[in-house]
């Protein structure tokens, strides 16, 4: 009989984690991108975006416009780069292929030095993760702190453990 009570309590805990994760997964599917929420890691888009800002992406657009702020990854290097589209070229045939040139607002030159190989353009379908539609300032700094500070992970886990233990009382 006590097992059922414990199972019920554990179920509540599972719901907390599963609903947070499923929200992210649902957003990912609806926005059609594997990474719909991104934290700004560099200062190349200042003063618009600072390190630690959270960006919300959307990827169901057929073409990108000049001036859109897009997120791309260089050949699956998994580090998202957030820059602005400087130029776009697409075929009159409207077949969905589009080439983009990007540049960070705070950089002197465009992103050609960043592109893989000798490429001078990005491919909208292959390289772009999503377009930035909205943002929350600074809330993502926690993830940067956890990634860059050795002790942050333990401090955060310790904090979570203590609050959950106290909460049960």
């Amino acid at each position, binding site marked *: *009989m006590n097992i*059922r009570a414990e*199972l*019920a309590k554990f*179920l509540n805990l*599972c*719901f907390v*984690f*599963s*609903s947070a*994760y*499923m929200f992210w*997964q*649902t957003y*990912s*599917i609806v926005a059609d991108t*594997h990474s719909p929420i991104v934290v700004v890691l560099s200062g190349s888009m200042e003063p618009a975006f600072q390190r630690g800002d959270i960006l919300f992406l959307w990827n169901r657009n057929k073409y990108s416009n000049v001036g859109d702020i897009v997120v791309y990854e260089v050949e699956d290097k998994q580090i998202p780069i957030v820059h602005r589209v400087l130029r776009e070229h697409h075929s009159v045939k409207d077949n969905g292929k589009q080439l983009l040139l990007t540049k960070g607002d705070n950089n002197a030159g465009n992103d050609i030095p960043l592109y893989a190989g000798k490429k001078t353009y990005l491919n909208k379908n292959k390289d772009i993760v999503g377009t930035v539609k909205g943002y929350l300032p600074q809330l993502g700094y926690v993830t940067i702190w956890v990634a860059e500070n050795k002790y942050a992970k333990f401090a955060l886990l310790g904090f979570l453990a203590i609050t959950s233990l106290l909460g049960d009382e």
Partner: protein
Amino acid sequence: MSKPVNVYSISEVSQTINESLPDVMKRLGYEETFELVDQKLLIGYSTAIVAAISFIIDKKFVHDNIVKYQQILVGTYFVLSVIFWFFKKYVEKTIVYSGKNGTEIIKLKTEYEENKPIYNMTLIDNKKKTLTSSLEINKVFNSEGYLQTDLLLEWVKQQLTTLSNKKK
């Protein structure tokens, strides 16, 4: 039962009484039945497992390859969550205890109002007779916050007798 409870918090008081009901009912000759609880746990854990599967395949495979599967999983999760919510609201409906004594079935529902030191219980038996009564908590809790289970048992016994004597 041996833990002092904050008597000003009606939600804590209510929870303590609810937790002691299985023992009280056992002493009155009832055996607890778990159909409702088991069904709820089944639906709930299925939902959690769907989420876990989604999490695992997201880690193991490239996102673009498994979009179709994730769509199915997200849809299933949503449907199961709705079923779970429906179950909690309409099927379980604040029942905190169900038990049987031979062929007699008894179900107990409890409610409380914010800031009122009154515990309300509705008793339902298998002939669909119901009895709703209120219990002032200071009758079963002493001033230090300990639940006097014997007094609670007496009160419940009274309610059960009244219920079986009811004509309708």
